[in-house]
């Protein structure tokens, strides 16, 4: 009798303990992992040209682009003279976009550059990338989608010029402190865009659905070639808006609030 009681007691204790497993706390998923995706290919007389991006889809805003140049034997060329030029052809006109000319990267064997697509592909409005290799030009059609959140801001500055501020989207955001980078370009004309350095950017993150911000952010500072790097602090997942107040070197405010929206 006693032993039975003892056993029952132990059994109860064990059952209860094993039921006390803690809940796993899965972190919220990021957007995607980097793996280069082929966008299209074209041939010149000497070379096969393949265009890659970090994601299968291109989106409005800043996109890294990679060009692989292969000769007839399939060997990757590192010495070709390669350049890119994005172009959108609309029914009545055409225009380009801010872009960063490609240069050869020995680590990947690719010519890498970037483009800031200022609008998405539409019915009659098609993007293409002109790639010139050793003087021979080919065009690779591109499809540019709209990113789910506003990662590019195109707005008129106080100097009546139009500025394009674009977020360099990271592979994934995480809770807490993140590196953040932007590009700033000024529209000169439909075909020419100039990278703007030495501006002052004051960045204020906000969660629009709650109205609060976050502490310890580091304002993006100019790192050349129109790029600005800083740190942004996400205290939680959800909707964030990065308010960017852009001033020129003399302290004149060019853009009062060029905001970028984040969701993760």
């Amino acid at each position, binding site marked *: *009798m*006693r032993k039975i*009681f*003892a056993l029952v*007691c*132990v059994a*109860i*204790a064990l059952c*209860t*303990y094993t*039921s*006390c497993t*803690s*809940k796993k*706390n899965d*972190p*919220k998923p990021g957007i995607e992992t980097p793996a280069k995706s082929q966008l299209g290919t074209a041939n010149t007389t000497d070379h096969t040209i393949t265009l890659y991006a970090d994601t299968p889809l291109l989106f409005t805003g800043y996109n890294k682009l990679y060009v692989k140049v292969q000769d007839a034997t399939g060997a990757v060329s590192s010495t070709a003279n390669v350049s890119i030029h994005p172009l959108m052809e609309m029914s009545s006109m055409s225009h380009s976009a801010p872009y960063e000319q490609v240069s050869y990267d020995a680590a990947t064997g690719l010519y890498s550059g970037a483009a800031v697509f200022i609008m998405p592909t539409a019915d009659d409005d098609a993007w293409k990338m002109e790639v010139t290799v050793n003087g021979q030009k080919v065009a690779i059609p591109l499809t540019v989608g709209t990113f789910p959140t506003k990662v590019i801001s195109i707005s008129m500055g106080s100097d009546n010029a139009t500025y394009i501020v674009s977020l360099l989207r990271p592979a994934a955001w*995480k*809770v*807490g*402190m993140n590196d953040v980078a932007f590009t700033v370009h000024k529209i000169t004309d439909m075909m020419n865009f100039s990278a703007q350095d030495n501006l002052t950017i004051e960045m204020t993150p906000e*969660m*629009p*659905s*709650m*109205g*609060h*911000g*976050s*502490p*310890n952010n580091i304002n993006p500072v100019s790192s050349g070639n129109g790029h600005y790097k800083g740190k942004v*602090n*996400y*205290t*939680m*997942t*959800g*909707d964030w808006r990065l308010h960017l107040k852009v001033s020129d070197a003399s302290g004149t405010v060019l853009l009062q609030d060029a905001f970028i929206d984040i*969701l993760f």
Partner: protein
Amino acid sequence: MSVMPPVVHNKKHMRIPLYALLLCSVPIMVHAQSETDSVHHSYTLSTVNYTILGQRHQKNYTRSRELQQSTDRLLERIPGVTMIRRGNFAMEPTLRGLSAAQINMTIDGMQLFGACTDRMDPISSYVEPNNMERIQLAFSPDGEQHNASVGGGLDFRLRQARTGAKTVWSGLVGAGYETNASATQTIAALQYSRSRFAISANGVWRRAGNYTAGKGQEIAFSQYNKWNLGLSAVYLLKPNQQLRADYLQDEGYNIGYPALTMDVSFAKAKIGSASYIYTPAGRKLKSWESKVYYNYIDHAMDDTKRPAWQVPIHMDMPGTSQTMGLYSRAKWYYTNHFLEGQFTAYSNRLHAEMTMYPKNAAEMFMLTLPDVQRTVYGIDLKDKIYLGRNWTLSPSLTVNYVQSSIYTVLGKETLSSLFTGSLDRKNLIWNAGLNAEKHFNGGWALFGQLSRGARSASAQELYAFYLFNRMDNFDYIGNKDLKQETSVNASLGMSYHSQKLHIQPQLFVYRFSNYIVGQRKQGYSTMTIGASGVKQYINIPDALLYGGELYVTYRPWDKWYIQSTNSISIGQDNAGNALPLIPPFKSINRIEYTPSKYGFYAESISQSRQDRVSTAVYGERASMGFTIFNVGAGRNFMIGKNTLNVHAAVYNILDKQYYEHLDILKLYRPGRNVALNLSLTF
């Protein structure tokens, strides 16, 4: 030092019935009493005497009614204990104005930590009088305490199954009803006892609706529902060696917290332990007890029952706490020394998160307590030296090594919002104390105590991530660079004891260094909608807490008994600002008349107004004083060998609108309340 130590020796003449009765409310406690008796002689000084007194002054008219009370109601009658109230459930004990991490709350020596970031679930809310044998209290970090702290602590000793009881089966059933809040309590206890084996079970079921404050004001969201089950088994390997297993499960549901912005959908604790106890007879080694334990607390806040205007954004805020640990404790005699040594180790993990669901936007998720792990190793040494017949001297030393860290990547990422560098903390903490007690002829005694206490900053103080504090309406963030808080405290008391009269005054002072408080942090935006700002925990150079207690009992005639309990605390920081949550003068006066089989009592509870507040610094407002009156009567009926106890009481008979100073938001406490309790002991 304890409230009124030397009195313990005269327990024949003294009692504090409310707590004492816990001991003797059921027949199965008989064995327990003799054991606590010997314990009592071993270390009187810092034990709270009411935990062990009254065994022979069992007052049958109250009896098992006390078991139907909530732990909160028992605690708030102890001099020096004041409760922080956030609703009608789970009040948080403070000792002389010290609370949270400054005091150390344990259940049967086991470490537990509440899972709620808003302090909705103090440990005392997971243990019921029906589970307990006694409440052991210490106001200083030495004495009965086995862990480092600055202000002593509470240990809720569980009632355990006893072998060799007079009857094989024994138990009780009881039920109570209170008109205010339509509260019901149902309790039961059962024990099966043989010579070498015993098992016992006890349970409580409570429910209450919204209570009504004085003058008919209903306090919305003050309901609660809970049940609690305690199981205990003991098996004697040999007469002096026993194996024990204890299990406690406590689950609360749908609990309203009218003083807070959220309620609780559930608060569940599972608390288990296994022990081996060796008690050699007639040797120098008196006892050696080793215990392993594990507990898991699961808590979820809820705002779904609140009206829409109170809920700008619906959110879920669950939290968990799990602790595993062990201790091994030995006591032995050596000439005129009574020595005690203990090794303890435990590890606690806290996780608390928040998910917000805004309308027309993505949900938001964050950790509010970012997966904190704390591991503590401790050694504890005490000695009690008997110097002649009237002198005792008790030195003690406690050393704790505390490691704090973050155990998930998400937790570390979250804290990258606030901190750079390593998040890990390591603290070596030591406490030391000396108690002295001297008895004089003619019933006089003097006792004094001097100790040094320290504590590491709590998980919340180190790593809180925007925890909202309703009292000052600020969001709090942690500070991983906090230094440990230390105190030097002293107390001095005397007692006079005669046949009819007992008087015991005591004065105390705590001087803190690196006292931890919240300080406004500029440039941080609040997380909580409507909060006034963000505060971060910091060390202030010093703080002072002082005050006293006066305890008087008087027996003018046979069967008449008068008792007066008075206490006051005064606290100020280094800049002279009054510290928050410090109770003002409180006085409980009680008169009892106990003709045979019957018992009657009347009592008043008074608190003076508290003007000593620093609204600008700590966000606390002054509060009004009050006096309320309670009366009660009871009677026992013998039914064969069984006892039926009937008890009726009226609390707050004048239906006064009142609150205590520590009540958050100063919500009124319950108005007039008529309670009827029945219980049958067999």
